[in-house]
């Protein structure tokens, strides 16, 4: 899996890239991984148009690609592979761009600037450090809270991911 993400980011040497591509070709699970890396970016960025077609097309493309038999010929990058790595890079860049854009602006809630809330304004600015220290104690509260949140009714157990979310 690490290999696949490295391949997507264009970080693999030719030999490794070759073997990663060969693995992609032979292992359906890895292909799903590859596709999901791309689909994740797509799905989060927009509301539509991802992409069973991409998955299918990718499989078709792999099926047509001749199997690489060792020892590999020393060839320069084929146009096809260049296109592939370019696609991966574009996806990676787009992902990073999207992440940067969606940095949570709520971290400094501006609602606190209202006069009535002056008392709370200064602690709010200390939020990041507090967050770090309290997160494990808060998780127990979060777990207890989740049961009663109506969002749990419409999303099932998915919102519980908040309670085990890892701070990285």
């Amino acid at each position, binding site marked *: 899996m690490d290999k696949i993400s490295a391949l997507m980011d264009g970080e693999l040497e030719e030999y490794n890239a070759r073997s990663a591509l060969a693995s992609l070709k032979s292992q359906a699970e890895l292909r799903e991984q590859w596709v999901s890396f791309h689909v994740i970016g797509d799905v989060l960025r927009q509301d539509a148009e991802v992409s069973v077609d991409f998955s299918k097309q990718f499989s078709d493309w792999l099926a047509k690609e001749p199997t690489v038999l060792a020892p590999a010929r020393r060839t320069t990058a084929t146009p096809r592979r260049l296109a592939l790595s370019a696609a991966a890079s574009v996806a990676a860049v787009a992902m990073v761009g999207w992440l940067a854009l969606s940095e949570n602006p709520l971290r400094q809630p501006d609602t606190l600037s209202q006069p009535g809330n002056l008392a709370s304004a200064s602690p709010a600015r200390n939020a990041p450090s507090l967050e770090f220290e309290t997160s494990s104690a808060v998780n127990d509260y979060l777990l207890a809270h989740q049961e009663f949140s109506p969002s749990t009714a419409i999303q099932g157990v998915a919102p*519980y991911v908040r309670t085990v979310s890892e701070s990285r």
Partner: protein
Amino acid sequence: MRKLPDGKVSNGKAPIGRLLTQPTLHMTSIRFRFPVFLLLAVAVNTGYAQQAPEGLLWLQKIARSARELNYAGTFVYQHGSQVETSRITHFVDTSGEHEKLEALDGSPREIIRNNDQVMCYFPDAKMVKVDKRSASRTFPALLPEQMKSLADNYQIRIGNQNRIAGHDCRVVILEPKDKLRYGHRFCAATDSGLLLKAKMLNERNDVVEQFAFTQLTIGDEIGREMVESRFDAKSLGWRFDRTAAPEASTDTGWAVSSSPSGFRKIVEMKRTIPGKPGPVAHLVYSDGLAAVSIFIEPVPPNTQFQHGLSQQGAINIYTRRHTDNMVTVLGEAPAETVIQIGNSVAPSK
């Protein structure tokens, strides 16, 4: 980036064959005739039937399918700059609902829900947290009073047809009527009603958090063994932190003097919480969709007490002191709402 890397744009056809072959939802007809009837009664009585019945019915459909369908899929959860991938599996049989949530990134963590019991497995810490829900609180679907509350606090609109993870879906938009709650943008599978994507938006329309399936299978292939923990056997020697089932509504002696508009108290109880020495007062306020919990306990000894606001994902957490008590307020609501509730917590007598 609507175009795929090779420039091809998806053609909008979904593999709905599989969806159509899902097993008959024999539980549906029995369990939900009653609430749907009530919903309609409420809709007629309160006069919002003209504005939003379709949106509300969609929400009802979403809640129902989340309970009754067998499905398994991978979803991404994004909050702030973090993205996490998880896998969810839901299975229903005669003994009820079974659900499994696995974190696919970082240290392996698992949440298993069997009806009203939730178990969180943390193999790194060799620990299991067990939360027993009060059986009566298990939501069958959105309750009628909740639906009314929803319609009072949100403008509910039906949006475009869309497609997520290969499934056609219908966009349902909940626009908040004020700044005290977040907006929501759902996309629910057109045929089954399963929620495929859920976005929470703040007043500037920035995404606060979102869930989205990247792969999803609905129907026959899901089996009981898929919702069992892989740590089941291993966890025998681990530490178990148990929460006793909270008693049904009790008077905690605490109240919120000025709850934000649209938020009503939905439950009040005393309960035990793992890691807390004594019982903790727990009150929950909700506007029909967002919920804010208030926890009150004596300030733990030897604790560096910190007053203030923090965040975890879309959850705002506000802590303050009231005499010798620590008041912690948290919920999926804007900071202003959480703070307002926190600041007006006081003994009820």
